[in-house]
């Protein structure tokens, strides 16, 4: 048996080491965010947000098409992904028999684990190739595929938190099942479903890989869903790979916009659901 002081020393040093690990990870986040903030803010201006890109050397270049493009892509993805995800989740929570539900959940969770680049390849084969051209629509569809399983599973979880007495109450008042599901159960869980949906939006807003060969990219303003479209993430990738100093600083500024948006959503959701986390 080792001496007690040795064991106590061991115990305190492990505590120290784990605290250091936590500090390192938090430090890493501060380092990355700090660098993005410090580098991005110098380029950031109103003009940067509302101007179109200009050729190298010309002042007043902006990323407006990328911002608009990202919003269009997110809108398409949400228009498809949200209803499918929410109603699919509703089926899982309200109707699925245990064995069939398990099988469905297994496949849905598998979809969550599919690397996003593979979703891009898939959408290319079923949409871009038959249609013969890249389009905002196909980009939106690939984001929707990433979004659906996330929304479905959070919706399911949220619906399960709704007490059965509410269901029984609705039925006892003579409401049909569809009325009970949509008007009572889903409404009671609306807050949770909405936060899940917001997190899903934050997730797809940062996706690049599935857009590479679906939405492609383009350098000027477009809102047409049948044509290629720019996105913040693709624009950052494009600028980062370029040899120009000027584009590099634009990449940092675009990153600042993107990351503020994504972390903003995450933090807002957190604040809204704080009570649930504090148990």
């Amino acid at each position, binding site marked *: 048996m080792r001496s007690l002081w040795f*064991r106590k020393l061991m*115990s305190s040093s*492990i*505590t120290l080491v*784990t*605290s250091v*690990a*936590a500090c*390192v*990870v938090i430090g*890493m*986040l501060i380092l*990355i965010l700090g*660098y*993005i903030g410090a580098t991005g803010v110098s380029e950031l201006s109103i003009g940067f947000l509302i101007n179109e890109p200009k050729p190298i050397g010309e002042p007043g270049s902006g990323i407006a098409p990328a911002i608009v493009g990202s919003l269009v892509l997110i809108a398409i993805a949400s228009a498809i992904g949200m209803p*499918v995800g929410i109603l*699919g989740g509703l*089926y*899982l929570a*309200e*109707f*699925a028999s245990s064995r069939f539900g398990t099988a*469905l959940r297994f*496949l*849905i*969770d*598998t*979809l969550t*684990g*599919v*690397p*996003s*680049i*593979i*979703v*891009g*390849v*898939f959408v*290319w*084969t079923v949409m871009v190739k038959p249609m013969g051209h890249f389009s905002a629509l196909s980009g939106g569809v690939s984001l929707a*595929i990433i979004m*659906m*399983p996330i929304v*479905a*599973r959070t919706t399911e979880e949220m619906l399960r938190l709704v007490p059965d007495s509410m269901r029984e109450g609705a039925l006892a008042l003579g409401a*049909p*099942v*569809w009325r009970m599901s949509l008007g009572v159960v889903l409404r009671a869980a609306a807050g949770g479903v909405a936060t899940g949906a917001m997190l899903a939006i934050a997730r797809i807003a*940062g996706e*690049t*890989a599935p857009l*590479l060969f679906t939405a492609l990219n383009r350098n000027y303003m477009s809102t047409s869903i049948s044509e290629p479209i720019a996105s913040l*993430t693709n624009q*950052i*990738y494009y600028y*980062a790979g370029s040899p120009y100093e000027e584009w590099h600083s634009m990449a940092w500024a675009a990153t600042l916009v993107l*990351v503020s948006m994504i*972390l903003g959503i*995450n933090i807002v959701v957190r604040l809204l659901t704080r009570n649930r986390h*504090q148990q």
Partner: protein
Amino acid sequence: MDQAVTNRKPAVTRRFFSALFGSLTPADWLFKQSTLLFALAIAGSVVLIVVEMARNSTLTFEKFGWSFITRSVWNPVTDDFGALPFVYGTAVSSLIGLLIAVPVSIGVAVFLVETAPRKLATPISFVVQLLAAIPSVVYGLWGIFVLAPLLRDHVYPAIQSKLGFLPLFQGNPNGLGMLTAGIILSIMVVPIITSVTTDVMRAVPSFQREASLALGATKWEATLIILQNARSGITGAVILGLGRAVGETMAVTMLIGNRPEISASLFDPSFTIASAIANEFTEATSEVYRHALVELGLILFVITFAINVVARFLVWTATRGQGKAAHA
């Protein structure tokens, strides 16, 4: 969910209805079936992904058969393709990522569960999760302009002067390569491993800790008991992290150097399956070339699928009975 059909229809009609719709009214039956359709659409996408990818990789499969996986040539000019360099690059970069991320993540998880007071643990675990919210392309950007120069100018020369005799650390480190990609992956998988490990540790009944403390164990010895109890779940967490690392695309594409060669040195550029697809798919001019890339994707799909199934099973067994679903 049962609801009797309460309308005053003749018995025959009622029997017909209940045979068709069960205990539901026609409107409710329709509602149920349409939500089922949506659930099936999500689940069916996975099946469709596999089918489509298989259909779009027939050319290379016919040409090379199973040897596609073990061939190490990648020559689009002569339409000669093999997956080995990419499988190798994917495996090694992910393993480097795990090698760094696993001890750190378990450290953080132990800190969160055993050391930090609850008031502190909650915000800290949220902050750690924010790392997962940062997009992959942002890690790539940061990697190119901050991490890679730092490693190239300071860290890699230092490693080389001490351990340069190992084949692992030979060659000319220019900052972009296997090791850099592995390091960025490690940062990216810390959140998932940490959060699942934390869940799994919390799922170990606290009497385990209390009993060891009562027998005179130090705090660390008690923690060790917890870790031992949670080991299958922690293995699941690590494998989940592996699944994340294997499928990571943008950051790796931007940092790994993108050369389809198998090299012993970790400083050399390499290629992963995901980064090969990201890089070359739009440039694939011939049909065979594109099929080769899709078949790479299919291999990646099978790998991540297997990894996720194993991981989810392990985590599910570890947290079962805690009323907590394991999130994959």
